[in-house]
């Protein structure tokens, strides 16, 4: 189901959560709403779900105006950051909830719940209570619950935000695979740019209640629309009049044309790569990404004076 957001604004007291936001999400797409906290991404998702009413603007689902439709009638599945598990129900009853509301027959419900338990790899956990599951298991249960009534849109609000790094990356892969199998229109909110780039076909970058850019992950990285996107999607440092990515800087021991002087503050070893934090002669900090071999060859140490040459910089008007 396609989603259209038309000139939506929302205010909470004196805080402008959304400021005249418009967005089109195509049917079957996997879209990420990416932004720092307070950027309005969760509010936008909740307005699409009908859990929040916009002050002005419209929401169209499959071309039809759904602005004043209650969440019950929108055909959306919603997954919350903190799972919102029904604590007094078993996993099986949690997943069956939407089906029972729709008065499906017992046999149908049993078959669908079994299917979903398998899909989210919780076979054998059906009779447990949410309190007896790990965070990752609870979130998979919440996903199965949202998917049970076969929603036309799946909305996820920071779905992996409360999980540890390893479970998070496992679930990312899993969500991508799930989408490739079901092709349900999916929108998820995240503040983690890596997560957005990893999972989504399209990323909507939001800041201070506005949309900064909508693009495919690669285009976002290679052609950011402005300084905010440049700085938020991937690492970037201010360099003279423009911006530069850490891997677009080369460290050389001697100065020549187009090099700048910098002092090494810190050398961080990140396994296969090394990141050097430097401060330029203009006092601006920046970082450089090197391979291990390069770093060893240069014998980088804190306090050392080096020279850097950018291979690509980007300036914004």
């Amino acid at each position: 189901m396609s989603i259209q957001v038309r000139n939506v604004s929302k205010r909470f007291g004196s805080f402008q959560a959304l400021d005249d936001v418009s967005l089109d999400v195509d049917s079957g797409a996997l879209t990420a709403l990416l932004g720092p906290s307070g950027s309005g991404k969760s509010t936008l998702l909740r307005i699409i779900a009908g859990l929040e009413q916009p002050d002005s603007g419209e929401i169209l689902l499959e071309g039809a105006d759904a602005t004043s439709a209650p969440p019950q009638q929108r055909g959306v599945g919603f997954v919350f950051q903190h799972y919102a598990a029904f604590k007094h129900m078993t996993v099986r009853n949690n997943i069956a909830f939407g089906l029972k509301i729709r008065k499906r027959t017992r046999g149908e419900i049993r078959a669908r719940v079994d299917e979903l338990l398998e899909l989210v790899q919780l076979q054998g956990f059906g009779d447990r209570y949410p309190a007896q599951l790990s965070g990752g298991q609870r979130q998979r249960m919440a996903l199965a619950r949202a998917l049970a009534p076969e929603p036309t849109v799946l909305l996820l609000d920071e779905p992996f935000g409360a999980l540890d790094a390893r479970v998070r990356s496992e679930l990312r892969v899993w969500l991508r695979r799930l989408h490739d199998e079901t092709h349900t229109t999916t929108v998820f909110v995240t503040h983690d740019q890596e997560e957005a780039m990893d999972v989504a076909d399209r990323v909507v970058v939001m800041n201070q209640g506005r949309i900064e850019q909508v693009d495919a992950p690669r285009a976002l990285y290679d052609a950011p629309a402005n300084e905010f996107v440049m700085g938020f999607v991937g690492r970037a440092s201010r360099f003279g009049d423009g911006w530069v990515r850490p891997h677009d800087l080369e460290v050389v021991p001697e100065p020549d044309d187009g090099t700048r002087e910098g002092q090494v503050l810190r050398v961080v070893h990140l396994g296969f790569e090394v990141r050097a934090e430097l401060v330029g002669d203009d006092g601006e900090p920046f970082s450089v990404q090197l391979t291990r071999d390069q770093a060893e060859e240069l014998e980088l140490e804190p306090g050392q004076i080096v020279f850097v040459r950018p291979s690509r910089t980007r300036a914004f008007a």
Partner: protein
Amino acid sequence: MPRTWRTYAVRFTALGYLLVVLVAPLSMLFWRVWVEGIDKAWAAITDPDTIHAFKITLILCAIAVPLNTVFGIVCGLAIVRRRFPGKGLVNAFVDLPLALSPVVVGFSLYLLYGRTGWFGPWFTEHGIQVLFALPAMVLATIFVSVPFVAREVVPTLREVGNEQEQAAYTLGASSWQTFWRVTLPSIRWAVIYGVVVTTARCLGEYGAVAIVSGNISGKTETATLRVQDYYENLDQAGAYGVALMLCVLAIAVLVVMTKLKPKEGVA
């Protein structure tokens, strides 16, 4: 080992306090019933007027507890989940009966439904006896037991939050379905606890009911008033017997509550 010493001191003080304040008077009651003769106490308990008094007490409970349970849940939901003008006032008013002496409650009802009160003349005209009859006693009992369910439900509703309810909405459940299937089950222990405390309060109510009931034996006398009645007529054994029955009822309520308490981890 100063730590062990301190632990024992704390335990001794706590237990000693309970012993002096709670256990001693109750034991005395049991002891007196025993000394005065169980047959005399039994005679008082099986006296038709006493049985009638317990019946009245149970009727008052049967009306006040369900009403205050429904009110407490609705009121708790309104305080926690809704925004409306005067919310702070409602929140404060719910607690009023905790602060107000029951005697004052009884006296205000007496004035309100009396011959010169706002409501009294209307009821008299329509031939409905409010004061010195069951209606006033019900009103008094309801008044003093209003806060307990709401007070239990409010913090639990806050703690549970409204995400589960929102999840239910997105899964297609109406507000009514969400209330029965999600909200009520998630606050059920608070409600049960509130009901038990409300019941206990209704069983023990004395002051407000004493003023509005007229205290007519076999007619408008509750169990607590019956104790007072025996005591004033110097029938000590009778007073002990009825008091003991009230005690047993209170203990039964407590036992029910302990049995109902949720098991850890599966709440």
